[in-house]
């Protein structure tokens, strides 16, 4: 784009507003020239235009000048004549002349002949939104994102795990000893709070990476393309194309996603979409996927997680077809108009700010909901007071009583059932409960090693440095043909993963993951569904998802066994 060399002299330049307006300006100028008080502050032509436009500040100023009212009366008459001539108010006529001049000038001086007909965004869109290539590209993007989440966050995950089970546990134990806390408080803090909350906090690095890439995809404009791609897919399911936007939001958290269904025009679409939103894998489920993925399928955890996310989408589409033909028939046709924003490279600061805001919410949840659940759960696991075996506790007995329901799905242990029950409060609690049951017990058996505060701090700093180097190696190793981690690769056998693999078969673990993906939404999501669509639909959501989850888990487990995978 080039600008001409033409320059406008500000001294000589005078915009012509058209014959009627110019004539009225000329009539006002002699009257203004007779007002030295005004001409001392304002240029006469500018003042005349402002009076014609009826600028309130200028009118006040003129009123206070001697003989100002006569000038104002003349200006009002002039405005009335212009309005009669133009059929519109003076300010609009003047603005029209200004923008007309700007538009004309821009056309004269801006040379667009060298511009390509297609912008970079158009060129990228021709590939990314292509009918054949669009969906495979989306699948690859999803896979790369989860590969990065699993691989790059793994060293930090181990580091946070080490910090929580090492120094943080040691400090808490020392502090409790210092204040001579009773034994039960020791047990509650170390086996309940630290195991429960810490078990969830170890996933903060992984979630940070996930949120970072989700924000990158959103801010770059790619997610809008995904919504565009999914329009055809959604119309196949009988849902509105715009429904995919709340569904995408569901990857973060189902609660805002349910509220986002308000963007849909008719109630039928809103309810149908709201019932499908919980089938999207929200970020709270990621800790469950990562724990099980690394424990049972360490070599293919990224593929497993990608598969679970995609399964959620496909399942939502299938259920959407059923809903649109049964519960929610007769959808009036409406058009999906989505303006695709140009691609842009989001600034790093903005990306980090958005990512941190989302991560902070997760940490706050760990410090409130999960903390409260961990404490309540610890008490339930120790009632009747002094019970030795958690299986005999109130929580263990209730969980064991419900466990047979899951026998056909292969995970009928009281531990798994209990975790699913608490997961109703928030999905992250599934991991926190398992951590409390398995790791809490294990911690009691192994006394922590004696270290000084300085050694602990040193260990934290060195651990962070090592994790950063390892994450860097992992990142570089994602480049095809480069592998910096082959020699150092080792199995991460944490207390939780060891306990899980000892209690469940890989097939049962897969059935468990499917159940976690589909089963009854958390309390907050059900609350949002009730607030948006009413109590009836809240119960529909809670019951259909539980039944569907059970059915799918049983199908996976029984089908796998039938095929000899068990």
């Amino acid at each position: 784009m080039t600008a001409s060399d033409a320059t406008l002299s500000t001294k000589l330049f005078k915009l012509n507003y058209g014959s009627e307006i110019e004539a009225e300006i000329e009539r006002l100028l002699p009257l203004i020239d007779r007002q030295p008080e005004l001409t001392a502050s304002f240029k006469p032509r500018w003042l005349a235009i402002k009076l014609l436009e009826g600028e309130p500040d200028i009118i006040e100023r003129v009123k206070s000048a001697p003989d100002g009212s006569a000038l104002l009366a003349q200006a009002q008459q002039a405005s009335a004549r212009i309005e009669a001539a133009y059929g519109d108010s003076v300010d609009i006529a003047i603005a029209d002349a200004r923008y007309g001049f700007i538009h004309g000038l821009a056309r004269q001086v801006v040379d667009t002949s060298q511009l390509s007909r297609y912008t970079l965004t158009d060129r990228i869109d021709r590939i990314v939104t292509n009918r054949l290539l669009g969906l495979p590209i989306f699948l690859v993007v999803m896979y790369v994102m989860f590969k990065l989440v699993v691989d790059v966050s793994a060293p930090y995950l181990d580091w946070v795990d080490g910090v929580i089970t090492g120094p943080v546990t040691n400090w808490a134990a020392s502090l409790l000893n210092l204040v001579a806390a009773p034994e039960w408080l020791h047990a509650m803090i170390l086996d309940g709070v630290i195991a429960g909350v810490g078990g969830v906090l170890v996933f903060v690095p992984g979630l940070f990476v996930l949120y970072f890439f989700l924000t990158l995809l959103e801010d770059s404009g790619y997610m809008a393309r995904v919504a565009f791609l999914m329009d055809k897919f959604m119309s196949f399911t009988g849902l509105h194309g715009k429904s995919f936007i709340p569904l995408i939001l569901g990857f973060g958290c189902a609660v805002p996603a349910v509220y986002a269904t308000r963007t849909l025009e008719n109630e039928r679409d809103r309810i149908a979409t709201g019932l499908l939103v919980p089938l999207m894998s929200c970020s709270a489920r990621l800790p469950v996927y990562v724990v099980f993925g690394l424990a049972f399928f360490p070599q293919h955890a990224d593929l497993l997680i990608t598969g679970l996310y995609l399964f959620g989408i496909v399942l939502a589409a299938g259920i959407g077809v059923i809903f649109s033909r049964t519960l929610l028939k007769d959808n009036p046709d409406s058009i999906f108009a989505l303006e695709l924003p140009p691609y842009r490279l989001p600034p790093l600061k903005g990306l980090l700010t958005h990512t941190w805001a989302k991560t902070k919410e997760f940490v706050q949840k760990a410090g409130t909901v999960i903390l409260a659940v961990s404490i309540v759960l610890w008490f339930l696991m120790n009632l009747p007071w002094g019970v030795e075996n958690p299986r005999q506790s109130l929580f263990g007995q209730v969980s064991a009583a419900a466990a047979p329901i899951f026998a056909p799905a292969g995970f009928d242990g009281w531990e798994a059932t209990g975790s699913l029950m608490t997961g109703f409060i928030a999905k992250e609690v599934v991991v926190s409960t398992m951590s409390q049951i398995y790791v809490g017990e294990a911690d009691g058996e192994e006394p922590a090693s004696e270290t000084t505060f300085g050694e602990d701090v040193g260990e934290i700093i060195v651990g962070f440095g090592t994790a950063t180097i390892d994450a860097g190696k992992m990142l570089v190793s994602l480049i095809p043909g480069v592998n910096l981690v082959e020699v150092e690769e080792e199995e991460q056998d944490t207390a939780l993963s060891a306990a899980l693999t000892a209690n469940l078969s890989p097939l049962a673990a897969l059935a468990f993951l499917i159940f976690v993906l589909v089963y009854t939404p958390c309390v907050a999501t059900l609350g949002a569904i009730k607030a948006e669509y009413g109590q009836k639909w809240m119960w529909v959501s809670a019951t259909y998802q539980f039944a569907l989850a059970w059915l799918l888990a049983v199908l996976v487990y029984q089908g796998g066994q039938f095929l000899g995978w068990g």
Partner: protein
Amino acid sequence: MLKEIMAEFRTARAPMCVDELSRTLEIDASALEGILDTLVQRGRLNVIDPANYTCVTCPAKGGCVILTNGLQKSYVFRD
């Protein structure tokens, strides 16, 4: 030019975003924004901003790039 824009809105009787209007009237989008703002200030057009209307109670409103980018701010003729 303002009259052309107003005529376009009167004919369409529906909300239009800057990109759409820019294509229809062949006016540069960045120049058009100023004109539309003037018409809003003068009370000739109303703004429909998805971030302020449909998503007013959504907790994710502030950070939802899909909604703010995908569903652009539109303008509608004020009767």
